[in-house]
């Protein structure tokens, strides 16, 4: 029930944003761009990294993060797009008893929008679902995931390198709500206006 309502809200919001975007520019005299952001950096898990009670474990809350994002950017400040990527959440290894390791990560599938300030500063916000994945190595290997509703907020500073390319530094908070997983990432991103009409 909770998921059905969430999905409905997501669909309505997507429809609203797409419609708003389509009607935002005056017909005939606008330029539209598709802009790709590809980046990577470090993530830091800031929620409680749960480990089994009674297990002595070495926990790592820092790891790699990557982002792939495509934004539809009209000639005004608000743009919309889709984001995915991969973020390590946390991992741990048992330090006593038999060897055991858990690696916990997520792949977001978010609808995002962006507000641009002073041509260089972008504020992103979005929501959707994350595929939260477990890789367990203990008496065999289990690799399995589940969906968790979530949201993202990010701020990036973008420096143009040419007419179609740029480089950006981005600070992002990503939160898979149902599984209570929050992480901050700091990434360097390559920005490419790959299509314009």
């Amino acid at each position: 029930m909770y998921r059905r309502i969430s999905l409905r809200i997501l669909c309505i919001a997507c429809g609203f944003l797409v419609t708003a975007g389509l009607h935002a520019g005056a017909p005939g005299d606008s330029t539209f761009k598709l802009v790709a952001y590809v980046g990577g950096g470090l993530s830091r898990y800031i929620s409680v990294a749960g480990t089994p009670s009674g297990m002595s474990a070495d926990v790592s809350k820092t790891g790699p993060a990557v982002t792939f994002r495509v934004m539809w950017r009209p000639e005004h400040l608000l743009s919309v797009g889709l984001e995915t990527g991969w973020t390590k959440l946390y991992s741990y290894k048992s330090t006593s008893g038999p060897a055991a390791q858990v690696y916990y990560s997520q792949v977001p599938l978010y609808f995002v929008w962006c507000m641009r300030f002073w041509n260089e500063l972008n504020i992103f916000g979005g929501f959707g679902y994350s595929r939260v994945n477990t890789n367990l190595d203990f008496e065999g290997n289990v690799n399995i995931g589940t969906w968790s509703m979530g949201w993202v907020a990010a701020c990036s500073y973008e420096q143009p390198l040419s007419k179609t390319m740029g480089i950006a530094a981005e600070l992002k908070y990503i939160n898979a709500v149902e599984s209570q997983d929050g992480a901050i990432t700091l990434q360097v991103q390559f920005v490419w206006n790959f299509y314009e009409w």
Partner: protein
Amino acid sequence: MPETSNDVLLSETRRFTPTMRSSIEGVYRVLEGNDVFGDIVAMKWSYSVAENLTDTTFALSVFSGRDVGYFVLQGGTLDSVFIFRGYWRKMVNTETGIAQFAIGSKNGGRRLFQVTPVIGKDSIVFTGSFGSGQGLPDRQVAFAYERPLYKAKRFEILGHRCGGRTSDMLPVSENSVAMVLFSPQLGLTGIEVDVRITKDGVPILYHDNQINLRETQKSGLVGTIEEYTYAQLQAFVRLIHGERIPTLQEALHAALYRTPTRFVYVDNKNSSNLALERSIQKAYMDTAAALGREFEILIGIPTEDLLNQFLTLPDYASAPSLCELSMDDTRKMGAIVWAPRWTEGTQLSNVATMHAEGRRVVTWTLDVAGYVQEYLAQGDFDGILTNYSPMVAFYHYTRQ
């Protein structure tokens, strides 16, 4: 739940005798505290046995008809005074606190020391107080003996998920051995257990189809139970109050050897290995019979698929079972209990038909006070599966 385990006075008391305990059980009139606990309460003893299978702890549960309220008390005698300490709570909200009672020597204490005490109206009076949270008890409460508990009809009070849901803020996790041991304090005569099969074929107790934060502590493990082996679950997953996920055998062992539980309804949540379940059922029921213990385990059949699987068992006709499907399916599989949804009503003629065929009828899952009263007064069910067992216990034991 307030911490009540380190009571100094209680440690000085002597244990009640079986006669004392049975004499105390009954329906009591509330003399003080009616605004919180209603006008009458029902008192019933239960017990649980420690893991060493020798140390037994008795608990006196007091079931109130208001807001699914109840007390759980432990006690003993000090000279001719009966001392009780414990806690009270209401299941429909967060109200809870410490409670303490005494039966003074002139309020029935002296009488309860007799070899065969004669108990009648007002012959036992509990006087005491209750508090809020961890605070000292500061509000007066008193109960006077009114009449014996209703025992005219055998009736099963069955607890969902081993006795209660984690969401009802119980001190132990649903579908855990700890919940099996706790369940008699909630007035339960039986439990429903949710069975799933691990990747390596071990029947375990777990309700949802996913490892989630409703049922388990965060561990970095997600996905379905069936993707993990039993060893992996044991090593990495803890239930919400820290317990490990039990096997079906561990739960049955606890119910048989460590509680007075007499009815276990095995609810199969996925395509269980019914042949394995049947062998476990037979082993435990044979053991119970050898011990002279009243104890039945029923394989629950909630779907057509499981029904077809059940009918392939070579000895299905002799396997005690419970059918949630139609009356015809119940007959087809030879189930001894038919379990219709409570929303289908009291179904008096269908229940009478089942009774005439020698079957019992248990309805599920009934949590509404008005319907519990109605079904007990006008229905003829042999049991109710509920999340609010103190409420069902109250309405059942206070029947006249």
